[in-house]
């Protein structure tokens, strides 16, 4: 039965990696197509600017939350 397990492991890791590789390539393709604004797709002209504005506070918030957490953990 351990042989069966080995088979599953080979196939399983192969499937996981094929899936994630195709996902990675698709995401890169998607980024190429949708990253820049001004490509004529009218969905949300100001989106990239807006999200640029948004990402920074998000990171800041996350870091702050993390630091607060660590601080409280250290105290306990």
């Amino acid at each position, binding site marked *: 039965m351990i042989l069966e397990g080995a088979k*599953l492991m080979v196939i399983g890791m192969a499937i996981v990696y094929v899936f994630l590789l195709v996902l990675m390539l698709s995401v890169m393709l998607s980024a190429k197509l949708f990253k820049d604004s001004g490509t004529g797709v009218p969905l949300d002209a100001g989106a990239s600017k807006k999200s640029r504005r948004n990402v920074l506070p998000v990171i800041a918030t996350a870091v702050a939350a993390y630091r607060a957490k660590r601080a409280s953990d250290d105290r306990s």
Partner: protein
Amino acid sequence: MKRLVLIFAVLAFSLGILTGTPDSFGETVDQGAITTEKTEELASLPVLLKNIATSTGIYGFIAGNASSWVYGFGMFLMIIVGFLLLYLGIAKKFEPLLLVTIAFGCILSNIPLAGINDPGGIIYYVYDIGIKTGVFPLLIFMGVGALTDFGPLLANPKTILLGGAAQFGIFSTMIGALLLTQYVPGIDFSLKDAASIGIIGGADGPTAIYLSSQLSPRLLGAISVAAYSYMALVPIIQPPIMRALTSSEERKIRMKQLRPVAKREKIMFPLIALTLCFLLLPSAAPLIGFFMFGNLMRECGVVDRLSDTTKNALINIVTIFLGLGVGSRLSAYEFLSIETLGILVLGIVAFSIGTASGVLMAKLMNVFSETKINPLIGSAGVSAVPMAARVSQDMGSKEDPQNVLLMHAMGPNVAGVVGSAVAAGMLLAVFQ
């Protein structure tokens, strides 16, 4: 904890006196022993008193023992296990949302004569309707989707591969379970059981519950408890492994700031993942489909009231019932065995191998790529969102206090969730 035990002892003693020693050992206890056939006439007062004494939980624990210890003392032990899980959840703050609810489900299900987990009892319904069908874990996954920001993954897609490496923990643990079966007497895991145990290494609660509810319902309790416990222990399990596999220079690698991600990219991601799923691996479609449904509701910006409810009221309600239902699988009969010990050992092996694989994969990618990755973020690929990413950040800033790895680690962290779901889907396809 000592005080808890003390209170217990006092209670048990004082109550033992009140109820007296049962004199009908060896008979099977049937539920609600006081009932007489003709409800219009009760027994005489002394008989009635004796009947009431035999309907106490104390008597149930002792007399249940007579037919099999798992129906008597075993149930009492499982209630202790329940209180222990409460302690871990409340005092130690180990994944309290799940451990507290699982613990209560465990306690309620192991009360003798109460029948809360028998047909007609409320927790029986909860398990039957929500867990056996897979509905509750999928709804939780939808809520997790509504809570997940794939931005860091989209900003640096290469980190997806780190989320794949960590799944090696799943499959190697599966082999570990088969090895235990072969060499340890008293442990007998089928291939399905081994697969369910391996998924603990996915470090993702709903996926573990969903897969084992489909493949190995008898192990569901132990697997869930192991998965959530080790997820809480990530800050203890991972650091030594990460330190052992990396040099100080590697841990100091700074990664360039993540680019901003357009809203349209975030909308496309769940659609892309769903498309790949139905083209390549339809058996993962329930898990990935509901995950991506929740994420699309989050990102699309036009159904905010639905995503708000999904990640608040809905996920909270389902969490309560999921916990109670999973707790109902913690019966003495199924939990108090050498196999549970095996699962607990295998679980920590799974987490360790997953962590190591992620770190090593990052180092491997650095061999082939110009832009170096800090291998500390590789360990975040096991999922355990967001705990594992915090561990990466923590270790990075210990080497270099200015190094902010948190957002970089979120990429493999969420990729690990997708990776585990893919692994689970593949296992479902093989066995179902």
